[in-house]
C-alpha cells in the first residue's frame, strides 16, 4: 500500500483551499450588506428575500446543482449572459464552481452576521446618530465592529462549509483533476476506484480539519458571550 499523497491529491487539496478562500471572501462581501438589510428593513420583500437566502440550507445539493448546471449551460440564462460578456460557459470551470459554492454557502454567512446585527438592537446606531455620525459612518464605525464575532463565525462557517461541500461541486464541476476536482469529490472517486488507502488519507484529513474548525468556533464563542449582556 502507498501511504503518501499523489499529485492529484495535492492538487485537490490546493484547489479546495483556493475555492474555499475565494468563496469566503465573496460571501463576506455579499452577505454583510444583505444581512444588514434583512436586520433593518421593514419592507414587504424582507420575508421572501430571507427565505431565498436560506433556501440553500434546506434544498438537496443535487437540486441546487442541477438548476445551476442548467442555468450556467450554453442555453441557460446565466450561460447566455457569460457568453455575451465573453467569459464563455462557466459549467465545469473553477469560476462556475466558485459561483455554486457562494450560493450554496450563502445561509452560513448571512445567518450569523444577521444575528449579530439583530442582537445589537437599534440603540447603538441611534447613539451614533446623536453623536453626528451619518448612517454610513455609523455602519462602519459601530455596526461592523460590534458584529465582529458574527463576521468571524460567518467566515469560519463559509470556509469550512465550502471545503465540505460535495453534491453541488460534483454536479457543476465534474471532478476534473487539477481543474474542478476538490477533496470531497476526490474521495468519492477513490472509493469508486477501490483506492481505499488514498481515500483514508483524504477522509482522515477532512475529519481532523472539521474537528479543528468546530473546536476553534466554540473557543471563539466563549469570550463573546461574556461581553454581550
Amino acid at each position, binding site marked *: 500500500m502507498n501511504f503518501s499523497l499523489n499529485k492529484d491529491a495535492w492538487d485537490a487539496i490546493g484547489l479546495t483551499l483556493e475555492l474555499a478562500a475565494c468563496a469566503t471572501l465573496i460571501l463576506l462581501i455579499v452577505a454583510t450588506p444583505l444581512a444588514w438589510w434583512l436586520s433593518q428593513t421593514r419592507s414587504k420583500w424582507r420575508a421572501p428575500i430571507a427565505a431565498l437566502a436560506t433556501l440553500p440550507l434546506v434544498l438537496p445539493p443535487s437540486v441546487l446543482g442541477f438548476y445551476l448546471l442548467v442555468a450556467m449551460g450554453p442555453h441557460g440564462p446565466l450561460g447566455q449572459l457569460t457568453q455575451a460578456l465573453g467569459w464563455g460557459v462557466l459549467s465545469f470551470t473553477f469560476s462556475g464552481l466558485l459561483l455554486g459554492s457562494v450560493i450554496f454557502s450563502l445561509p452560513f454567512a448571512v445567518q450569523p452576521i444577521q444575528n449579530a446585527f439583530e442582537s445589537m438592537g437599534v440603540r*447603538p446606531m441611534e*447613539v451614533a446618530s*446623536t*453623536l453626528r*455620525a451619518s448612517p454610513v459612518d455609523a455602519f462602519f464605525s459601530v455596526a461592523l465592529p460590534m458584529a*465582529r464575532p458574527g463576521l468571524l463565525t460567518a467566515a469560519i462557517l463559509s470556509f469550512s462549509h465550502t471545503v465540505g461541500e460535495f453534491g453541488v461541486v460534483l454536479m457543476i464541476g465534474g471532478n476534473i483533476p487539477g481543474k474542478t476536482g476538490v477533496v470531497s469529490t476526490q474521495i468519492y472517486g477513490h472509493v469508486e476506484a477501490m483506492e481505499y488507502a488514498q481515500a483514508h488519507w483524504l477522509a482522515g484529513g477532512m475529519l481532523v480539519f472539521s474537528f479543528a474548525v468546530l473546536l476553534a468556533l466554540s473557543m471563539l464563542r466563549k469570550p463573546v458571550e461574556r461581553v454581550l449582556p
Partner: protein
Amino acid sequence: MNSADGLRIRVHLARSDFELHVDLDLPANGVTVLYGASGSGKTTLMRCVAGLERPAKGLIRVGQDLWQDDTQRIFVPTWQRNLGYVFQEASLFEHLNVQKNLAYGIKRSQKQGAAEALAGAIELLGIGHLMHRQPASLSGGERQRVSIARALATQPGLLLLDEPLAALDLARRHEILPWLEKMRDALRVPMLYITHSADEVARLADHLVVLENGSVKACGDAQDVLARVESPAIAGEDAGVLLRGTVALCDAHWHLSQVEFPGGFIWVPDKGLALGQQVRLRVLARDISISTDEPQNTSIQNHLQGCIEAIVEDAHPSQALVQIRCGESILLARVTHRAIAVLNLKTGSTVWALVKSVAVIA
C-alpha cells in the same frame, strides 16, 4: 418670552394605541423637566425632538435652527442636529474604551474648542481616572457619567436626558444627582430632562412640563406649577412646593441656617451652607400643619403666617390640600376635612402654617 430664542416644539403623532399632541414654547436656558407617568409620551416627545422619531405633523425649532417643519417639508436627520442625547440605560459603545467613546462625537462634530469642551466635561463629571477603562468594567453610575460627558463634549445647543437615573439603584442616583446639579449651574446649554421622580423635579427643574396621556397637563416655571392645586402636577405623598431662597443667617450655636424667601424665612439644619448662597427648599404638603392662631408652645420652630387661597380634595376622601399664600410664595398643606371643619377654615382665612420638615437642595 422671545419665541425666536427658545425651544418651539409642536408635535402631533398618532399610533394605533397612543396619540401625542403637544405644543410647547420653552425657554432657551435652564433645565426643563418633562414629568409624567410611564406611557405619558415623555420619551416619544424627546425622540421627536431628536429626530429619532418622525411625527407626521411637527415643528421643532431650537433657537434659530429649524429641525423640522412639515409645512415646509423640512426634516433634518438626527446626525445633523446640534444636540446631545443621554439615553435611559447605559449606551456606551462596548467596543471602544472610555476615551474613544468620548472622542467619537467630538471627531464628528468638528467644532472649535473641542479640547476645552472635552476637558471641561471630564472635569465636570469627574471621570478623568476612567479614560482607559472598557465600558464593561464600569459601574452603572460611572457609565452614565461617561455617557453624559460624551454628549456634553460635542458642545450641543440642546441637551436631552431621558431618565438618566432610572436604570440606577438609589445609592447610584445619589452619586450622580450632585453632578447633574453642578451641570445645571455651570452650563449655559438648555436641557430637556425626563423623569418620573418628584425628587429629581425638585432638585433640577427650572421649568416644568407635566405630560399626561400624550398631552400637556401643565407647563411653566417649576415653582408655579408645583404650587397649583387644581389638577396638581405631583399628587399623593409627593405633593409639595418648591421654594427658592437665600441663606440669610447662620446660627453656629444651634447648628441652624436661616433661609429667606419671598414671604418669610425658614430655619433649616446647617449643612455647611454659606451666607448668601442660593438654595432650593422642598416642602411637602404632608409636612405642614395648620393653626388658626400663632402657636406658642410647640416644638415646630418654623411658623409662617399666610392666607388660604384654595381648599381642594386630595387623593384620600378624608384629606384635603390647602393652598396657603405667604407673601409672594405659595405653600401646600395636607390636612383632614375634619380639621378644616373644626377650625372653620375657608378661602380667605388667615392661618399659621407649621412647617415640620424641609429638604434643602443646595
